[in-house]
């Protein structure tokens, strides 16, 4: 993931023809490219889309996907919804919180739609099923090995 620059944000906005009704899509593209939404980006989006900063800020704050802080190098989402709870996601989450280093951000997610192979996690955008503590550790080791 790269840093947000006025140029990179403008390119994303232009990709959506600077339509204000595409704000959610634009923010999604910002997060997919940069990992989070900075205050400067909010200001810039408001200007380029002819919206108030409050409007943009409100949308950013509303949706879970739109982080306002820079995440770690790796993002691991652990499903916390019922199907995964039934297969031990609470215990897995406890384990995960002690198993990763500062480079990895752990986030909750409410359903990855992988409910027949629970518990499910998403590592850097890839969904992985049937994850127990040992499997989790090998996923983390693979991330650290790739660094």
């Amino acid at each position: 993931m790269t840093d947000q620059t006025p140029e990179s944000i403008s390119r994303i906005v232009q990709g959506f023809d600077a339509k204000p009704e595409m704000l959610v899509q634009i923010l999604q593209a910002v997060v997919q490219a940069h990992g989070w939404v900075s205050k400067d980006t909010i200001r810039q989006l408001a200007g380029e889309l002819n919206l108030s900063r409050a409007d943009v800020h409100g949308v950013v704050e509303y949706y879970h996907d739109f982080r306002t802080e820079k995440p770690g190098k790796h993002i691991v989402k652990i499903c916390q919804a019922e199907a995964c709870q039934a297969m031990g996601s609470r215990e897995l989450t406890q384990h995960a919180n002690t198993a990763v280093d500062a480079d990895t951000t752990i986030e909750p997610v409410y359903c990855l739609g992988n409910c027949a192979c629970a518990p499910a996690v998403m590592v850097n955008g890839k969904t992985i099923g049937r994850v127990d503590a040992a499997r989790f550790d090998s996923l983390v080791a693979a991330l650290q090995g790739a660094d």
Partner: protein
Amino acid sequence: MSRVKVYVPRETTSVSVGADEVALAIAQQAKQAGDIIQLVRNGSWGACWLEPLVEVEVDGQRIAYRNIEPDDVPGLFAAGLLEGGDHEKRLGPIIEEPYLINQDRWTFWRCGLIEALSLEDFQLHQGFKALEKAWDMGADAVIDAVTESGLRGRGGAGFPAGIKWRTVADAEGDQKYIACNADEGDSGTFSDRMLMEGDPFGLIEAMAVAGFAVGANKGYIYLRSEYPLTHMILSRAIVTARDAGWLGEDIQGSGFDFDIELHLGAGSYVCGEETAMLESLEGKKGIVRYKPPLPAHEGLFGKPTVVNNVVTLASVPNIINMGGERYAGMGVNRSKGTLAFQLAGNIKRGGLVEKSFGITLRELIENYGGGTASGRPVKAVQVGGPLGAYLPESQLDTPLDYEAFTEIGAMIGHGGIVVFDDTADMAQQARFAMEFCAIESCGKCTPCRIGSTRGVEVIDRMINDENRDENYDLLVELCDTMEDASLCAMGGMTPYPVRSVLKHFAEDFALGQKNQAIRNE
């Protein structure tokens, strides 16, 4: 030697347990051995517990191998995989698999069967036949067929699709829209995803049929961001369909214009509520709208809009092809046709089972699901997502029928069935229902926004044995308020799982006498 077709699904669940790695290993092994194969990436048949499920076509028959790992591949080739050779993981012909053979695959019939992104394969399997037939029938007859079929909204609310379509068709306005709700947020559900990943052109055709029927030239798909693979598959399918003249202006020279825009959600559960979804499609916060006006009158950008779930729409092409009467002939009472049930959570054979309404939970969980994955007794089953009730073992003989579920204070919703074994702490599950509502509430109405937070606090006090009886009364009162005064199902139905725990699993709250009193109600 001719090219042997080898099928490896490209579908989230299969890929989540290694299907991509298996596909790569098979391609490499074939190359090494000098075998010429055609690797086909199909959708999933829905037998998730068998994934990755590899099939090889031998003499026109597809032979299946279950739970294949990359390390199995050399051994499979040595055993004669390409001739359907024997192996400990060989299942036999896929069409004889018991999990699939007794299903009523009306909506999901192409799922697993065809190469998901091959327009040619789609058209070899009835693809776009319903759209062409719709043009011949005329818009009115299409809506009549949908009405006659008795098809109800599969997103959860169960509203008759034909009535909705008729309302939009009759509404004033030169611009109308089809908005496909693919924000499948309920835990335990994945049928929308499987359909979109396994039969993306099927959804495109269905939306075009809907557009033709009601006079809409533009469709939107609102897809949740938790489904990146689905997004890739749908995006490619839309481009392919457009390039081949099945989307865009004057489709196949019919004079009918229709195009689809794919939008991503951003992790908000309440955006699955239709009006919140419309707000989000307009680029705003996903806050629920007051109704009326109904979206059918004033929907997306204030225009008449059909909002239907993926499975609702995808059920339509076969209704056009085979007639509404045929669909209405399946199911029971006012629950016509089929539903794609999803077996999830602590279940041995999890997956998607499309059956006619009327089957019981027990048949699904025991006959299809094989009981719990842990092998322990079933304690509770949550049907219909996070707003659905927890049912005890004694209610498993309830037939899956919208009205029968309403009678026991439960709902079928989107057909998700999440099984818990006897180690589950149901007081924690009741707490989670409130907690989830607090996290996901859009904040517009007070009962939902504040009630959910208070609900967590009250339940915590009950769990910690602080004035348990008083807090019990408070919780019941809070549930009444949320149910009666919330704007949408988020706050209005969060009490369902909570009340069901109080009623059926009171011992998990250590509610002694209260427990008895509730049971005697």
